[in-house]
């Protein structure tokens, strides 16, 4: 038995191979999104007073949310070809619709954000002002854009039968 055969056998024994199977992730992305939003609030709050604990918790939440987003992209519905092969017609259709809805959601959010920025001073409410506020906002949007297609694709397709992968 070669080393590769042993590794394959170990993966099957440890059920690691099942982690690579695509599955709908309907609720888990909300947890990652909540972590990313909470991290942004922590990182930009404090009105210029730097608090190490807030920064540490904010960064930890941001890294946790981003790593979770990247993992969910791999474990959720297939949105790009991988070692399992190219996307078939159903997956291509799901990918196209999920990408379109994701883009639409981010566009509407950006549009609402623009109006918010325009009127924030008038209503004397908070808006991103320092370069760091904008950097953190960009990072949060980057993670959200990675997560949204997985979330939307998971809701676009019905839940698979339990035995589909077992045959």
């Amino acid at each position, binding site marked *: 038995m070669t080393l590769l055969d042993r590794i394959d056998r170990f993966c099957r024994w440890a059920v690691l191979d099942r982690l690579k199977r*695509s599955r709908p992730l309907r609720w888990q992305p909300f947890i990652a999104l909540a972590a990313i939003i909470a991290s942004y609030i922590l990182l930009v709050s404090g009105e210029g007073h730097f608090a190490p604990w807030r920064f540490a918790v904010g960064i930890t939440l941001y890294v946790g949310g981003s790593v979770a987003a990247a993992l969910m992209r791999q474990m959720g519905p*297939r949105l790009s070809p991988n070692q*399992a*092969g190219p996307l*078939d*017609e*159903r*997956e291509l259709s799901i990918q196209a619709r999920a990408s379109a809805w994701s883009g639409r959601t981010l566009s509407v959010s950006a549009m609402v954000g623009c109006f918010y920025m325009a009127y924030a001073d008038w209503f004397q409410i908070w808006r991103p002002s320092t370069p760091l506020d904008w950097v953190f906002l960009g990072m949060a949007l980057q993670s959200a854009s990675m997560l949204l297609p997985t979330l939307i694709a998971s809701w676009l*397709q*019905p839940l*698979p*039968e339990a035995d*589909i*992968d077992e*045959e």
Partner: protein
Amino acid sequence: MTNLYNRIALFRAERGVSRRDLAEAVGVNNQTIGYLERGDYKPSLELAMKIAAYFGVSIEMLFSFKPFESVADALRRAAAGE
């Protein structure tokens, strides 16, 4: 939206073909075969023709806009006709 009924599961069971085998033969993910059988996904004309060709039957034998008669009903009708 119009329902599209199919007898893929019946043909697959009759021929002893697994979802994975059928999926590999027609070039799709095996989950897609599951979604097709449940009526959760409507195939393209190309995929429908590939599946029909795999079983060696016409498309009308596999797909229909009207529900197919169940095997039990067909057997009952055949028995009554004898």
